[in-house]
């Protein structure tokens, strides 16, 4: 192994570990902010870490079958595979993004979700299955505007290469895709609400409707891995959005800051809205965001 690929591997491992820690960190920061809005203290910043360690130290892990056992591992695999395809900066921080373009990233993201869905199916709980059905329906909803936004970007940059898209945004805030192409930016931001599963669109795990939804049958280590992967997935999704629409980042700290600021947006939307009914969730995305997306795409093409 050459030193170059050695360094790349080390940086990748560091990014994967960092994404876990940072994912938990922004999660707990979000919980603090939520608490402040709700007039209370909120949990300490280290709370997600404590939770995960506790879940690992549980004594019993129960499973209903092979897929439920394998599901979390496959989920982790899917998320890490996604993570290594997203560039987090320049040089070694592009990780392995030369092995797949935007379309690859979009598709490999679903790997983890499929694994999760299969694990939930094996558990045989109707609430879990309903949660998955809801989650998939929501995905079918928000993917339309998201795809429109991404295709617009590809059309504008003549490339599906994330690194190229980042490079094209060089030179100040005005050049960021979200501001240079406002329709595309708005579409992406609306679709992002669906991606982040905060309040108006948290149907999949609505406690009052389907208990805890997909995670109903998962405890202990399974739950710990799910929490970890969720934290990583949030970072991956946000990093991708920052790369595509908010100018990428020259160094990892600015990226972290941008990720956090972007994370606040669905959080605050979620704080002041109840959740949609399932049909409305689906229709919401296929109405206005899609229309704006089509306009953005039309502008991008012509």
């Amino acid at each position, binding site marked *: 192994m050459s030193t170059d690929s050695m360094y790349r591997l080390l940086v990748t491992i560091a990014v994967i570990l960092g994404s876990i820690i940072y994912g938990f960190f922004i999660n707990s920061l979000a919980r603090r902010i939520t608490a402040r809005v709700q007039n209370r203290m909120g949990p300490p910043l280290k709370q997600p870490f404590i939770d995960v360690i506790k879940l690992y130290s549980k004594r019993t892990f129960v499973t209903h079958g092979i897929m439920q056992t394998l599901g979390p591992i496959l989920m982790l695999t899917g998320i890490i595979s996604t993570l290594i395809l997203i560039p987090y900066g320049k040089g070694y921080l592009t990780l392995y993004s030369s092995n797949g373009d935007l379309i690859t990233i979009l598709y490999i993201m679903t790997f983890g979700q499929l694994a999760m869905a299969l694990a939930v199916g094996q558990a045989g709980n109707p609430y879990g299955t309903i949660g998955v059905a809801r989650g998939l329906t929501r995905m079918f909803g928000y993917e339309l505007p998201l795809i429109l936004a991404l295709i617009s970007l590809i059309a504008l940059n003549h490339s599906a290469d994330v690194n190229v898209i980042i490079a094209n945004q060089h030179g100040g805030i005005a050049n960021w895709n979200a501001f240079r192409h406002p329709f595309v930016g708005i579409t992406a931001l609306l679709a992002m609400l669906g991606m982040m599963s905060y309040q108006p669109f948290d*149907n999949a795990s609505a406690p009052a409707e389907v208990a805890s939804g997909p995670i109903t049958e998962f405890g202990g280590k399974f739950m710990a891995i799910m929490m970890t992967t969720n934290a990583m997935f949030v970072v991956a999704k946000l990093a991708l959005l920052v790369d595509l629409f908010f100018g990428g980042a020259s160094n990892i700290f600015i990226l972290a800051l941008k990720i956090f600021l972007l994370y606040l947006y669905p959080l605050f939307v979620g704080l002041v809205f109840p959740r949609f*009914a399932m049909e409305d969730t689906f229709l919401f995305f296929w109405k206005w965001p899609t229309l704006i997306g089509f306009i953005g795409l039309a502008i991008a093409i012509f």
Partner: protein
Amino acid sequence: MKTTKLYLGPQHPGITGNMMIELDVEGNKILKSKTHVGYLHRGFEKLMERRTYIQSFPIVCRICVPEPDVNENNYARAVEKLSGLEVPERAKWIRTMVLEMARLQSYLLWMGGQSGSMGLYTMPQWTIGDRDYLLDRFEELTGGRVYHLYVWPGGVRKDLPIGFKTRMLDLMDYLESRMKDYTKLMFENAIFKKRAIGTGVIPKDKALEWGVVGPVLRGTGIKHDVRIDEPYEIYDKLEFEVPTYEGGDIYSRALVRKFEFMQSISIIRQIMDKIPEGPIYNRIPNPFKWKIPKGYTYVKLESSRGEFGYFMASDGSEKLRRVNVRGPAYVHGISLLEKILPGSRLGDVSTILNSLGVCPPEMER
């Protein structure tokens, strides 16, 4: 089988207490719903037959946990009616105030539950936090946060503490100002409206036939309120309106409750303003020897969830012969729910349940 059986409760976050709704679901649509009760049955009506009149007070308030004062008040008035005990004027005013405070805290709890069932989690944090200020006033007045044992046959136990009036009025101002926030966050929220309007509709022509009471009934456009129809305590001396909204859906029920919340604040202000001086209770005989003449009576009042009635029969001994409690939740939670849930969506079950103000302990007693 095309249908899926879902058990909503007893251990489910979407249920308002320890009860169970057995749902037959086809896709997202509910085909059949059946309410199961008995998880909280303690046999109050039987227990009260073994206790003297005064001994029954501690358990009577536990019939309805979120709003215990209506039970105390009903029971006290029934005992007074049976025994012919007089209540001093000032006690009546204080009792009314306690009832209205109970209504306020019950509505605050409901607001939290209603919006929490839709996923608006900021709202319960605010309202239940604000409800605690009311509980503070209760504590100051009665010594208890949840169960008060304050209303007594022949009056109330204690007079208002010094400075209570100012603190109460301050609290009313605070709640009124908070209501503006609540309105923005909940009642005028676009998604709340989208989910609430047209959901869980109770037809107006069926409402009375089905035995619907309280804000739920007023939400269908029928004006019925015990406080106005058959005034008790001092409600005939107070000025207040009873709102009605057409529609019969969750949103009209919410608006009724919002309006009544403001009315309760105004009632408490009036009471604080006009409350006469005087004694607060008439002495009762030695409770262990207190025999109440043979007879029966039915008393009722308007609780935050509707008409709450007590039927009591005495046989001349120091213990009750028979008591029957008629709570609104029994109708709302069992027969009404089974009628309006089929055909609605799975996601709306908890919302409808909350909007009806179902309180399981009161159903089962």
